[in-house]
């Protein structure tokens, strides 16, 4: 049986991406960010963190032929973006495949949304 919980795939993919050196975070989708902002209050602006899975999307191909995973990463300055993205691509794909109950095609898209500057600490 090939039924897989998509939420479980999101978690696996997020963990794999965040484990790649040079990845500092995953960029949540707009809906998540808006929800977090709506829940946020003035006094505790940092207390409403969006879960890392919010930066991953997992979709079954319409014809049921496999999974498509999209990961949106924020990188740290200092490593070549394409190399980090390539590693994320490989690790996410491997992690998702290992989670599937039966072999299915998995395609992955990695989007670098931001390269965070190394800041001078004040």
């Amino acid at each position: 049986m090939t039924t897989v919980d998509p939420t479980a795939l999101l978690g696996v993919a997020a963990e794999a991406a965040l484990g790649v050196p040079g990845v500092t975070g995953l960029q949540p989708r707009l809906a998540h960010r808006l929800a977090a902002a709506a829940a946020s209050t003035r006094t505790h602006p940092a207390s409403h963190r969006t879960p890392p899975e919010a930066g991953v999307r997992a979709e079954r191909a319409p014809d049921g032929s496999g999974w498509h995973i999209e990961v949106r990463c924020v990188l740290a300055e200092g490593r070549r973006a394409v190399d980090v993205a390539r590693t994320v691509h490989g690790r996410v794909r491997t992690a998702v495949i290992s989670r599937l109950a039966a072999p299915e095609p998995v395609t992955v898209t990695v989007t670098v949304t931001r390269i965070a500057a190394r800041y001078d600490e004040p």
Partner: protein
Amino acid sequence: MIERTASPRLECDLPDGLLAVRAAEGDEDSFAVLVRRHSRSLLTLACCMLGNPQDAEDAVQDAFVSAWRRLPEYRHSAEFRTWMYRITVNRCLTMRRRRLSPLSLNTVVEPVAGDAWSQPDRSAERDAATVALTRALAELDAGQRICWILREVQGLPYREIAHMTRTSEPTVRGRLFRARRSLQEAMGPWR
């Protein structure tokens, strides 16, 4: 994602116009430099106009977010600083109107507090003269107060103040005179 806003290295030495160009193309870090560069004077302005630090923070935050949205159509006909003043002044005026509206459904309608800046935890560091001035400012007519703040605290030209307050230069000068007169009477007599 909640992130800390710290000082990026290179943007700090760029003039406002260049930062605004970059921010208009979606460069958040350039916008962050503009925010840090101007929030002090805009917050002082909003505090003086609204008399309430929390409302002032909200007004300035709204003004910056609105500026971020409108940056792509900002044509650099005015300096960024002036453009931000206009947005902030308009925001403060809107908030005042809303707060003062008899139909307002706000549960708490705060009066313009004379000692808005003398919060208990801050009074120790607050210069007595500043508190006295803030009190005196709160007693002023709103039109006089905004003209005085824009001129004497922010140093804007008369023409700019007239534009922002939608009056004429002579009106601005007249309000300034009356504001000076009232503040002088409140703060200290002729010697």
